């Protein structure tokens, strides 16, 4: 395998960026960094880059993310205080060197190796469950039926905490969602998005983020097609059009717990991305959870 290693030596370093406070602008500059590639899932990454300060309340989430990067893995704290004792801290504007060094690191996992619920050896087949739906097969219970808000079929509801570092959501926003299929049935904001400063609301950045969710680059947006692709009636088109013209958007959204239920996932994500982070932050209660 030595030729494989030789070939891999000059490969781009796959980086998963966990964006913290004032980190959105920082992350955008990474696109110009040579030899570094931003990826959308920690599974694809080699290095965890924490861009901007993350509150210690969310250290657990960061550690989980860190654990999900397959080993060997490295960590870089970019303009962020360390939350665990691994990785290098970068104060300046260029984390390139630190990322390259982290690509040779081998951080141990920060979380204890225990399943979410004990299950081994329990149940009739040792799978941890009992009966049809009971117990914790393989460490987790199964989803149970609940009422649906749209078509009246009582099928299983999936409840989970999404964020704060899910690339599709505004950084820092933690949503406790219950979903049926890909439609959100109920939502609660456990933590508001991080403050991003004025650069977070810059039209070009906001437009680029939204267009990225639609699978195109900012250059393709000159075609009106990008606007036509958005659903009518929720103001998304209006706001994206304003951003593309270079105007700032000052509209405030309805609080996500009221606005998200009933929306399908892609629509919900686009809706959240169609507001400037500062406005979204203003309508989410501080420290609700």
């Amino acid at each position, binding site marked *: *395998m030595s030729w*494989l*290693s030789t*070939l*891999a*030596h*000059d*490969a*781009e370093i*796959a980086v998963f960026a966990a964006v913290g406070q004032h980190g959105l602008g920082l992350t955008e500059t990474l696109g110009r960094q*040579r030899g570094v*590639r931003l*990826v*959308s*899932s920690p*599974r*694809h990454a*080699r290095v965890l880059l924490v861009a901007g300060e993350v509150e210690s309340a969310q250290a657990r989430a960061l550690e989980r993310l860190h654990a999900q990067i*397959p*080993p060997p893995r490295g960590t870089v704290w970019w303009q962020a205080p360390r939350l665990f004792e691994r990785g290098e801290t970068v104060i300046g504007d260029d984390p390139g060197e630190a990322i390259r060094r982290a690509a040779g690191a081998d951080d141990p996992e920060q979380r204890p190796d225990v399943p*979410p619920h004990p299950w081994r050896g329990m149940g009739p087949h040792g799978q941890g469950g009992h009966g049809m739906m009971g117990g914790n*097969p*393989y*460490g*987790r219970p199964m989803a149970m039926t609940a009422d649906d808000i749209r078509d009246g079929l009582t099928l299983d509801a*999936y409840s*989970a905490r999404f964020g704060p570092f*899910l*690339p*599709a959501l505004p950084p820092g926003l933690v949503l406790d969602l219950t*979903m049926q*299929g*890909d439609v959100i049935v109920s939502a609660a904001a456990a933590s508001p998005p991080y403050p991003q400063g004025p650069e977070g609301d810059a039209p070009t950045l906001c437009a680029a983020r939204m*267009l*990225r*969710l*639609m*699978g*195109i*680059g900012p250059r*393709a*947006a000159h*075609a009106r*097609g*990008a606007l*036509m*692709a*958005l*659903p009518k009636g929720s103001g998304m088109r209006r706001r994206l059009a304003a951003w593309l013209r270079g105007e700032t958007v000052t509209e405030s959204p309805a609080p996500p717990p009221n606005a998200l239920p009933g929306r*399908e*996932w*892609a*629509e919900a*994500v*686009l809706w959240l991305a169609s507001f400037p982070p500062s406005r979204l932050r203003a309508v989410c209660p501080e420290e609700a959870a």
Partner: protein
Amino acid sequence: MIAATFALLLSLPLLVWVAAMFDRIGAGRGRVVMAPLQNGAALLLRPNTETEAPDQLNRLLAPGWYLALALVGLSVVPFAPGVVASDIATGLVLWGACEALTVVVVFLHGWSPNSPLPLIGAYRYVAIGLPAMLLSMFVLIGAALPAQSLSVAEVVEAQRDLWNVVRQPLGLPLFMALGLAITLRGPFDFAEGAELAGGASAEESGPALAAWRFARAAMLVAFSAMAATAFLGGYLGPVLPGPAWLLLKTLAVMAAAVAAGRFFARMPPARMLTFLWVVLLPLSFANLALVGVEALP
């Protein structure tokens, strides 16, 4: 036939490499030639990911089936008169079967890790992949009409006077929609879109991810070759030998597919579903009617 198979197996990795280069150019990134190989090698050296209670077997096999469908789809494309890897009388139907099974494979890929984002990706993909497949069936039947045969070789021969892209102008764009869908690209990438953070592949890492990406690029090659054959006259052309023409046309379609994938925005799935059934499907009916009237003796 054996020779054609060897040619196919040798050229596919090279064409997959070219497809990866096109993707890098499309994304506006440098180091076009070497980076795909280097990044692929780096992926191969990373570990696979196991999830909490995955469907191990299907997870292992999904990339293999995807690649198998790409290979089988490619094998019905003739490289020159009489030179084809699988000489089947109903090549167009076999290609259709490959499309249909692609939907199944992508679903399995998203289902098997037992994780929410891949699961949502898998289900959304089925909603769009099924009707998109319907479109391609209609346009391919359009291509079969003047040939009076379901054999891909006959479809090429029927284009000696005039390529289908001129005779049935709606065919190629509609077929392109299917191509974007089965190669998980741009406006039809409902399985692995950015709003799902990698979707069906979000839980894959290392060699499993490399194998899946390889298969996806191979499917792009297969689709491009099929589009070139059904609408651009395949191996037909002056001066150059047949295989060279096929290669050039395949590369052209591939470039067009990559460009289209980066140009058109992705709609939310419900909107796309309505668009497919209410706009694109009637267009494919219109295409068929056009072809039918034109092909009348």
